[in-house]
C-alpha cells in the first residue's frame, strides 16, 4: 500500500465523487486539487467553474485566488460573479466543495465568527464569501475537512452556510431549492453522508488505519452509522503520481 498524507487521501476520495460530465463550483486548495485530479483521471469532461467568472479553464497550475488569472486561463468563457452564481441558481451546477471553522450534525457551516456576542466576536472569520450561495444553489454540497472535535460541534456559533438546517424537511421549508443540500463530508478519518429522514450525519466509510471510535472521539456530536460501513479505498499509485506530479507539483496543497 503506497504511502500518503491526510491531505492526499482526502483529495483522492473527493476526486472520485466527481463523475465525468458533471459541473462543479470550486474554490482554491483541496477542492480545486480534487477537481483537477478528477479531470486527469476518470472525468476528462468535468466542467470546473469559479465563482468570479472562470468557466472550464485549462488550469496551468493551482490558482491562489478563485478570481486570479489562472481561473480563466484558456477558459471557454471569462464571465462574471452573477453569471456563475445564477448558472448555479438555474440548476446547472451539480457539485460544490466547501469548508468552514465549524460544522454541525446537519452539515451547517460556520465561517463567520467564534464567540457568543456577534457584535464582539472572539474570532472574526471571512464570512460567507460565495459559500452560502453555492450551498443554496448547487445540487450537492461536499465538505473536505480534518476530523476534529473543535470543528465538528453540536451547535455552530454562527450559521453562515445552510446544510440541512434543523434536519427533516426544514431545509425545503426554508425556501431553499428542493433537491439541494449537503451530500458528503470527507475527512482524514472517513466519509459521512446524511440519513435520509432525520438528515443527521452518518458514517458510511472509514479510512484505513481508523475505526468508528476514532471518528466519534473526534466529533462533538453523536454520529449515526450506516448499516454497511465500507473501508475507504486508499489512494492508488496512479492517483498519487498524478496528484503529486501534475496537479500540485509545488505542494501548495498536499504539502500542508
Amino acid at each position, binding site marked *: 500500500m503506497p504511502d500518503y498524507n491526510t491531505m492526499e487521501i482526502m483529495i483522492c476520495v473527493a476526486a472520485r465523487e466527481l463523475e465525468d460530465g458533471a459541473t462543479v463550483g470550486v474554490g482554491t486548495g483541496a477542492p480545486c486539487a480534487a477537481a483537477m485530479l478528477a479531470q486527469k483521471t476518470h472525468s476528462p469532461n468535468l466542467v470546473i467553474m469559479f465563482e*468570479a467568472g472562470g468557466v472550464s479553464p485549462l488550469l496551468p497550475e493551482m*490558482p491562489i485566488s478563485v478570481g486570479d488569472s489562472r481561473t480563466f486561463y484558456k477558459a471557454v468563457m*471569462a464571465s*462574471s460573479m452573477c453569471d456563475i452564481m445564477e448558472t448555479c441558481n438555474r440548476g446547472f451546477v451539480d457539485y460544490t466543495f466547501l469548508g468552514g471553522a465549524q460544522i454541525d450534525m446537519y452539515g451547517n457551516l460556520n465561517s463567520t465568527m467564534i464567540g457568543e456576542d456577534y457584535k464582539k466576536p472572539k474570532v472574526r472569520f*471571512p464570512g460567507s*464569501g460565495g459559500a*452560502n450561495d453555492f450551498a443554496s444553489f448547487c445540487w450537492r454540497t461536499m465538505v473536505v475537512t480534518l476530523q476534529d472535535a473543535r470543528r465538528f460541534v453540536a451547535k455552530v456559533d454562527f450559521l453562515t452556510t445552510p446544510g440541512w438546517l434543523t434536519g427533516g424537511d426544514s431545509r425545503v421549508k426554508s425556501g431553499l431549492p428542493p433537491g439541494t443540500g449537503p451530500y458528503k463530508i470527507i475527512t482524514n478519518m472517513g466519509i459521512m453522508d446524511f440519513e435520509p429522514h432525520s438528515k443527521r450525519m452518518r458514517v458510511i466509510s472509514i479510512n484505513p488505519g481508523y475505526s468508528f471510535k476514532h471518528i466519534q472521539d473526534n466529533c462533538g456530536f453523536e454520529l449515526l452509522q450506516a448499516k454497511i460501513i465500507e473501508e475507504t479505498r486508499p489512494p492508488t499509485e496512479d492517483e498519487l503520481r498524478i496528484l503529486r506530479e501534475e496537479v500540485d507539483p509545488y505542494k501548495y496543497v498536499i504539502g500542508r
Partner: protein
Amino acid sequence: MIVLEEGKGRLFTDPDPDRAREFFKKKSRKMQSKVMNLKEAIAKFVHDGDYLAVGGFGANRTPIAACQEILRQGRKNMAFAGKTATHDFQILAAGEVFNRLDVAYIVGLEARGLSPCSRKYMESGKVEVCEWTNYGLAARFKAAAMGVPYVPARNMLGTDTLRYSGAKVVECPFTGKRLTLLPALYPDVGVIHVHEADVYGNARIRGILIMDGDLSKAAKRLIITTERLISNDEIRRDPTSTSIPFYLVDAVCEVRYGAYPGTMPYEYFSDEEHLQQWLEVQKNTEEFRKFLNYNIYDCPDHYEYIRRNGGIEKMNELRHKELLLHKEITDARL
C-alpha cells in the same frame, strides 16, 4: 406586502431608486475629458463618511493604488463593500478608513491566510457590520444597476447570515415560494481598475468582469484607474469591447501597474513575496507601522511605491509570470 422574516442588519445606503434618479439626473452626460491624476480624483470624489466600493476581486484587478491614496489622504468614517475584499481590505483596515461594513468576504487573503490587522480591527468593535454573501452583494449592485429597489433571490434562507443581513423574506405572488429580497446598493463612490480607457471614460476590461459591470452603473460617482489611456477612435473601432460607457464616469486616472501587488490579467501576476511580507510584518505593531510608512505614507504616489519594491525589473518579472513566460524561460534553460 407581508414580510415573513427580515435581517436585523442596518442598510448603510438608501435603496430608493427615485433619490438615485434625482442624483443621476444632475450628472453630466457630456463627452468631455475627465483625465486627472489619482491624488486629485480621490480628493475630489472620495469624502469622509462616503460609502465606498472598489472593483476587482480581492487581489485581482483591484485598484490598490487608489486604496493606498485613500490612506494617504486620511479618509475616515467611511462605509465599505466587503465583497471578497482581501488585500484592499487589509490596506483600508490598516488605515481604519471605514466604520460601517457590508460583509461577504473579509479579513482573509484566500489561500494566503488571514490578515492579523484586519482581524484585530474587526474584533475591536469599532466597525458596524451587516452580513451578506458574494452573490448577495453582486445582486444588490445589480438591483441598483436595474434602477429598482431590490431583486429577489434564493440564497441566505434559513441562516444567521440572513438574520444579520438587511434582506427581507417574502412569498412570491406567482409561485408562493419564499424569496430573499436583496435591496439595491448605490455606493457614493466606486473605483474600478481597467485595462484601457479613453479620456472620456469609455473603458475596456479583459478577462472576468466579476461585479464591475453592475458596480459601474450602481456607483453615484465613479473613478476609473487604467493601465493605459487609448484613443476614442480605438474605442469606436470596436464598440463590442466597451465594458463601461463614458457617461457613468467622473474621473479617468492613468495608473500603470495600478493593481500591484495584486494580479492584472494579461498584464502582471501578483507579487506573492510582497503579499507574504504584508502578512508577516503585521504580527509586530511597530514593524507594521514602519512598513506602512515606507510603502504608503512616505510614498508620494504609486510609482514610488513600485520603485521601492523592485521597480520596472520586478514588473517585467511579474509580467513573465502572468504570461507563464517564466516557465518557457526555465524550460529553455534546461
